């Protein structure tokens, strides 16, 4: 088997050669632009590199024009805590005391459908390396999952694979899994969503950037060897040059080794501490193509690299495949020559394989050699940053008018009137797959490792301590509601933001910054593009209204089963800071005899609700009204009350409404309650169905010790937040009751059993 090198010299002398640009996903004008940039046809290696770096996944070519507003719709006040903004591997925010945190959420949707276990595992691995690349020690992970319908025969395959994959990788890394979401809906049947979030912490001085700016510095690849993982589409290049019986097909999904990543994390942190790296970049999507071009482009410099020095798992790989390989657990460091010895001592200690590939050069040009042959000679900026930008056609979807007109009232959905029917609906709602306990999943993840976990699932947010001396910590919550996104993508994005923001505030932290993972259908469908346009505008406007900046994120397009797009699912993550995690507020009632207050106003808002889905299998109407000024007021109140230690518990109201929140508040610590809805129904003019199941926003259910009652109510009144006492905690243990006046007395045991059994019965 021989490999014929398509060098730049060969390319210059054979301009007529037909190239498989179309098979690599490039458009004709994109290919022509490459020829124009280079002044000749690209070599096959260059073609591979441009094709993958100009792909939707790497270049954000369809989303870029909309993502800009996250950087534009900001005030100076919002930027105050922002140390590194969008565009780097992950954003960095100042949390005080000289500490900074970096966090980001990313999708691994498509691989997770093909091979759920490895797809999900490498999703965790990839996001953790992004955090590590910023100079931080990763301190926690979370995951946001969407699966198909529970009754579909393929769903269990995906659920088991994804959950095992996340556990396998995350548990072996020693990172606590502190929360996430799991939602089942048939729209995700052929396209599950697997989003993974990681957060890391570092001192301000330790922030690292992905750039190569000093000529003479060495370019070093270290970590796992390069193999044929994730090469996928690039195999069309190989099949051209290999014999017919050669290894023409390459796997599309990467395979992860969490042990290698754990060693890499500790090794990198030691390298940072020894101050021997000038720049660092992880290898993820687009592998070496991405790392070399981005490092050089970010540093306004160039690079000369010898590809034959890459350590390989498989000696038969062609240079194009080496450039594209997405083998996991690899990093690229830029190291000053005088620090090479110290660098090598550390990688040797951790037994991490390392190879010096080349050096940084003064000229803004990326040269890649294959032995004696030059196979890449490009301006790195044209590969990494100056890819195509599209303003895709946008079309208002007419069907949405019909959908919006078909609300729960228009559709005539029946509301139960008899107490026993309402009580049965309550149990049906809380034990439905999306509302039931997810502990079958979360119990498979280590949430203790590190010894800094202050809150984890099922509380409203995950919280980890950053400083062991002061107790300074961060809280994180993520949310998204695809049903609301389908009804109104602008409002849907804001509802996700508002819920995550509220969850962080409910746990006692002050919201500080936002990340997102925007999961949508095909950008080539103008109606999907309209949804995307609306959602990004909603999110940017929402962040501006709440005064918290977007620090980074990820876009995932082409999420569809056949031609049918998923519901727009913009996952929004909010990070908050708390000066001492000892002040954190749990989501459940802890003590008997505390007063229970509902904060905020309830409207008859059941369109798109869990009630409409579970009881009536209905989706239509308009999502709940978003009132971000009210959300802000509520968050400020919760923060103030936390600082004064007034809250025994706080739990936000969202999917499933008050019914869901009061049941979860009981079950968290097995403390019962007596609740009366009469005053609420009278004040807000509600029937019992709306009082129980409405999903109006800006509401939180809190419990307050009697000694703090006057102070707390005074605080609410002073800040103009509606407050209404609707009950009192009472009784402890499984025999305790949730007594809802004029409705039913539920024993906690009778609530816990169906709530806890649903998921294990389906998947256990």
């Amino acid at each position: 088997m021989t490999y014929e090198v398509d060098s730049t010299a060969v390319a210059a002398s054979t301009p007529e050669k037909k190239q498989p640009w179309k098979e690599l996903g490039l458009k004709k004008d994109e290919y022509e632009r490459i020829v124009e940039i280079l002044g000749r046809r690209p070599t096959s290696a260059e073609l591979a590199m441009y094709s993958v770096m100009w792909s939707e996944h790497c270049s954000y070519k369809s989303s870029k024009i909309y993502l800009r507003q996250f950087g534009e719709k900001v005030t100076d006040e919002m930027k105050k805590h922002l140390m590194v903004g969008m565009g780097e591997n992950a954003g960095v925010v100042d949390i005080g005391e000289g500490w900074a945190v970096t966090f980001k959420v990313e999708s691994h949707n498509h691989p997770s459908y093909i091979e759920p276990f490895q797809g999900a595992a490498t999703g965790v691995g990839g996001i953790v390396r992004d955090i590590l690349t910023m100079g931080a020690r990763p301190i926690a992970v979370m995951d946001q999952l969407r699966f198909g319908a529970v009754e579909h025969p393929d769903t269990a395959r995906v659920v088991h694979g994804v959950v095992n994959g996340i556990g396998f990788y995350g548990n072996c890394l020693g990172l606590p899994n502190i929360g996430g979401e799991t939602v089942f809906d048939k729209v995700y049947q052929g396209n599950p969503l697997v989003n993974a979030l990681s957060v890391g912490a570092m001192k301000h001085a330790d922030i690292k950037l992905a750039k190569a700016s000093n000529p003479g510095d060495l370019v070093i690849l270290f970590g796992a060897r390069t193999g044929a993982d994730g090469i996928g589409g690039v195999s069309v290049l190989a099949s051209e040059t290999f014999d017919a019986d050669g290894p023409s097909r390459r796997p599309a999904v990467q395979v992860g080794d969490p042990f290698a990543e754990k060693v890499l994390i500790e090794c990198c942190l030691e390298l940072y501490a020894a101050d021997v790296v000038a720049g660092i970049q992880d290898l993820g999507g687009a592998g070496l193509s991405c790392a070399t071009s981005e490092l050089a482009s970010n540093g306004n410099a160039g690079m000369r690299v010898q590809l034959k020095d890459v350590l390989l798992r498989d000696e038969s790989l062609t240079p194009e495949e080496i450039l594209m390989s997405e083998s996991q657990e690899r990093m690229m460091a830029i190291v000053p020559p005088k620090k090479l010895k110290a660098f090598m001592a550390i990688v040797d200690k951790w037994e991490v394989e390392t190879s010096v590939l080349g050096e940084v050069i003064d000229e803004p040009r990326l040269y890649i050699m294959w032995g004696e042959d030059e196979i890449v000679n490009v301006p790195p900026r044209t590969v990494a940053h100056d890819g195509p930008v599209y303003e895709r056609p946008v079309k208002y979807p007419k069907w949405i008018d019909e959908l919006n007109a078909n609300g729960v009232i228009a559709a005539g959905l029946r509301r139960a009137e008899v107490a026993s029917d309402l009580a049965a609906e309550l149990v049906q709602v809380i034990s439905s797959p999306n509302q039931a306990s997810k502990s079958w999943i979360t119990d498979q993840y280590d949430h203790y490792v590190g010894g800094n976990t202050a809150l984890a699932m099922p509380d409203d947010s995950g919280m980890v301590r950053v400083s062991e001396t002061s107790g300074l910590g961060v809280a994180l919550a993520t949310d998204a509601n695809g049903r609301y996104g389908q009804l109104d993508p602008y409002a849907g994005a804001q509802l996700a933001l508002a819920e995550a923001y509220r969850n962080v505030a409910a746990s006692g932290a002050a919201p500080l910054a936002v990340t997102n993972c925007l999961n949508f259908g095909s950008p080539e469908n103008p109606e999907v593009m309209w949804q995307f346009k609306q959602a990004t505008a909603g999110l940017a406007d929402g962040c501006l209204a709440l005064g918290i900046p977007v620090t980074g994120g990820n876009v995932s397009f082409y999420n569809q089963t056949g031609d049918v797009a998923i519901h727009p699912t913009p996952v929004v993550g909010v990070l908050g800071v708390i000066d001492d995690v000892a002040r954190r507020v749990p989501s459940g009632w802890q003590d008997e005899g505390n007063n229970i207050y509902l904060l905020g106003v309830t409207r008859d808002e059941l369109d798109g609700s869990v009630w409409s889905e579970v009881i009536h299998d209905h989706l239509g109407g308009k999502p709940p009204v978003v009132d971000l000024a009210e959300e802000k007021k509520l968050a400020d109140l919760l923060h103030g009350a936390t600082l004064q230690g007034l809250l025994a518990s706080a739990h936000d109201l969202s999917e499933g409404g008050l019914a869901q929140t009061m049941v979860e508040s009981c079950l968290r610590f097995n403390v019962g309650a007596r609740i009366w809805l009469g005053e609420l129904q009278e004040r807000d003019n509600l029937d019992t169905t709306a009082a129980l199941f409405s999903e109006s926003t800006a509401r939180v259910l809190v419990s307050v010790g009697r000694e703090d009652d006057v102070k707390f109510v005074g605080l609410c009144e002073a800040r103009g937040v509606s407050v209404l006492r609707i009950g009192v905690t009472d009784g402890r243990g499984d025999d305790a009751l949730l007594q809802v006046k004029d409705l039913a007395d539920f024993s906690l045991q009778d609530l816990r059993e169906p709530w806890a059994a649903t998921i294990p019965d389906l998947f256990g």
Partner: protein
Amino acid sequence: MKIGVVTFPGTLDDRDAARAARLAGAEVVSLWHADTNLHKVDAVVLPGGFSYGDYLRCGAIAAQAPVMESIIKAANGGLPVLGICNGFQVLVESHLLPGGLIRNEHQNFICRDQKLRVENVDTAWTNEFELGQEITIPLKNGEGGYIATQETLKQLEGDGLIAFRYLELNPNGSMNDIAGLRNARGNVVGLMPHPEHAVEPGFGPDTATAMRSGVDGLKFFTSVMKALVNA
């Protein structure tokens, strides 16, 4: 008193074990897997994790590490050694404790607050407990099912070498509900659950009185401090 905490590549809970030892008043010394030097420590903790990726068999490669050569020798000479989770697997693979640990009966990794009964208090790591005391500490493992031959089990039961037993729920199918063992001399103790995750209020398991307030694990470390002072 100096407590050594071993780090193998793939060890995860070394920083937690070090924190626990410090909270008990010890000076902590990090021990590196490739180094045979124990730096004159008075006791050793083998923490949890996935040493060497747990390839081959959990703890099997770690048992062959240079540092283990020194630890096995010292343990046979009476040095207190505590193996937690992967550390317990290493102790078993090193033949400092008998039996083996296999995949959980239900096949899944499990993380939960686990109730245990203290079955033996005559060891360097359990002397601060009361016999029969019920404690709750986190458990998190994928391969925690304890197995042994009937003959070994009989000997463990007969000689009082079972240090901890699972209560209420046997989380991994362990024979005789065995959660942890001691050696005959009482200086070596190994268990699957994690005492180092229940040492600091606010970060341990929930208790009846408050969220995450469980600190039952701290007594493992105060026990060894007491044993060392009295030695």
